[in-house]
């Protein structure tokens, strides 16, 4: 089944005529993803063409969704306009909006998140690599790739990956695939302090997903989202979980690249989070090279076959 998206999901791209959005729309089309519409205000009626694909462009998300049946949006809109772009997807009643954009003002996201309360749309991101549900073709083609992750490193399978960091997600996925362990869905929830979907939200979905048999959770310094997820895992999660926290050597008070990666107090250091992981029965990866192996250890202990 996978979570959030399947290879059949119909995707629209907000900002498809920009460099960034266009480049990744092409890569998603190459991957076999159903990119069925683009949205760029003022360019409605034009087409986005690539390798035999002719994707219609609309002036609004509502038009695109109505005309093409798209239910999921990938947002590549520049930061000053990205909050508005998310709300447009919400107003159009999409199932899922995935905001790739990095650098959205925190205040904009505070307001967007409040405005989304009670809506049917789920937001993933912002400042995230996106969501990949691998396909069954060569190099996992035929899957659903939303965002900027390299599709070819994936392999269809039964491990769920959730992470705040893009390159660390790729690292984990690459380790799994190299060991012939495939993934059900890989979700980048983003590195910002205010985001739409938390570690816990994704862990709950993986826990309910019959296809997923094991989970890798990757976090970093700042905030308490990983701790909240770990405590829930201890009480409710039926599947083996491996965890990694980046930033053990980060100095307090400095923003480490990601807007949300800053140590605010004793509770949100890497050491504090790792301690909670251990208390909650999560197998901790001692280095980033150890993420797949940590899950293998957890699975062996639980008697679960990952591949």
């Amino acid at each position, binding site marked *: 089944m996978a979570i959030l998206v399947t290879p059949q999901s119909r995707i629209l791209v907000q900002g498809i005529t920009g460099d960034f959005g266009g480049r990744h729309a092409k890569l998603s089309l190459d991957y076999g993803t159903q990119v069925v519409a683009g949205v760029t205000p003022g360019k409605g009626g034009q087409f986005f063409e690539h390798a035999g694909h002719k994707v219609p462009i609309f002036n609004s998300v509502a038009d695109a969704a109505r005309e093409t049946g798209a239910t999921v949006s990938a947002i590549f809109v520049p930061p000053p306009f990205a909050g508005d772009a998310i709300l447009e997807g919400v107003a159009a009643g999409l199932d899922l909006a995935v905001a790739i954009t990095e650098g959205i003002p*925190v*205040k904009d996201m505070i307001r967007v998140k409040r405005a989304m309360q009670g809506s049917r749309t789920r937001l993933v991101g912002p400042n995230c690599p996106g969501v990949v549900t691998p396909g069954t073709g060569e190099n996992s083609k035929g899957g659903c790739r939303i965002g900027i992750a390299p599709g070819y490193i994936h392999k269809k399978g039964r491990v769920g990956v959730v992470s705040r960091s893009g390159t660390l997600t790729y690292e984990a996925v690459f380790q799994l695939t190299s060991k012939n362990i495939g993934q059900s869905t890989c979700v980048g929830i983003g590195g910002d302090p205010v985001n739409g979907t938390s570690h816990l939200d994704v862990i709950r979905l993986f826990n309910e997903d019959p296809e997923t048999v094991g989970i890798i959770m990757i976090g970093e310094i700042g905030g308490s989202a990983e701790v909240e997820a770990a405590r829930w895992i201890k009480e409710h999660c039926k599947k083996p979980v491996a965890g990694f926290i980046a930033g053990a050597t980060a100095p307090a008070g400095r923003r480490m690249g990601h807007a949300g*990666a800053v140590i605010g107090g004793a509770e949100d250091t890497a050491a504090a989070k790792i301690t909670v992981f251990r208390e909650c029965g999560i197998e901790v990866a001692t280095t980033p090279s150890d993420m797949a192996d940590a899950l293998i250890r957890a699975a062996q202990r639980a008697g679960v076959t990952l591949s």
Partner: protein
Amino acid sequence: MNIHEYQAKALFQKFGVPVPQGAAARSAAECDTALASLPEGPTMVKSQIHAGGRGKGTFTDGYKGGVKFCKTKADARGIADKMLGNTLVTAQTGPAGRKVQTVYFTVASDIKKEYYLAILLDRATSRPVIVASTEGGVEIEKVAHETPDRIHKVAVDPAYGLADFQVRELIFKLGFNPTEAKNAAKLIRSLYQMFWDTDASMVEVNPLITTPDDQVLALDAKVSFDDNALYRHPEIVALRDLNEEDPKEIEASKFSLSYIALDGNIACLVNGAGLAMSTMDIIKHYGGNPANFLDVGGGASKDQVVAAFKIILGDPNVKGIFVNIFGGIMDCNVIATGIVEAVREVGLKLPLVVRLEGNNVAAGKRTLAESGLTIVSGDTMADAAQKIVKLVG
């Protein structure tokens, strides 16, 4: 982005948050003008650096205290001479300290009681939260740890804004008398407005004080802003003080590199913030010490790599370099070519370990191997980290 206390207090005043009368000075001549604008009487002299702990700090020439009470303006003038141009070391500056380029004179207030007041983002609820305490003038982390019942918080609904009942809740919990309560309510409202309108990420007033005549004043002010929102606040950007930032970090930002200096000797160059952080961690794990955080972003062009090498080599502590690139979409061979060119251009003499993985990695590794340069290749992050730690010794 951080600003100085005197700049923060000017913003406070603009939004109607009362502060003691004060004036800043950057030179001896400006000290005279600044003091002339203040009434005769007890005066505070405050070193203006971005780090906290100024009062308990020590200057590198042995003079103690970056914040001083003086009975007269003439005394304050003498103290300012000792501080200006002197380097202040506090618990937050590191041993190098910070050069005091500005002093701030304020009228010394009569203090009846000290409180704590701050506004910041509550990540758990994605709302601004106002934090207040009757325990002012001390480390709030300590209060939170030892007497959590003395910390009061209200989260503000961004759809409605700060509600009157929430202001009343704080006022009652802090135990103000009726006149103080009226003044404090106005101050809290004004401070929240400033936080919201300027895209601040944190506003901290420690201490907030009451005076014998029931005035409520912000005696100190610490403000930082959301970097993502600076594009819409040119008036805030104008307050940036480059003297307070590491020159290497400023240089890095010109090339869209995210760089933070640390005190180890193994420099890292990595693509992606999470991978960059964990590269530092893995160096430490194998017994080394990272010299920096450096994220070249997803692209890692040749120009960026050259600029990154130059910045890294500007740190005299660096004894070796660890390049860790996961080329997801980027062609690893393009990155390898960039690394080779950068090494030639800067004439690198230090040990260099490169771990390259991802798209077209075989060609990338070949380019490194055939370059004729002494570049050590690492197969995994763990392998590469152990190699650089060993080479640096």
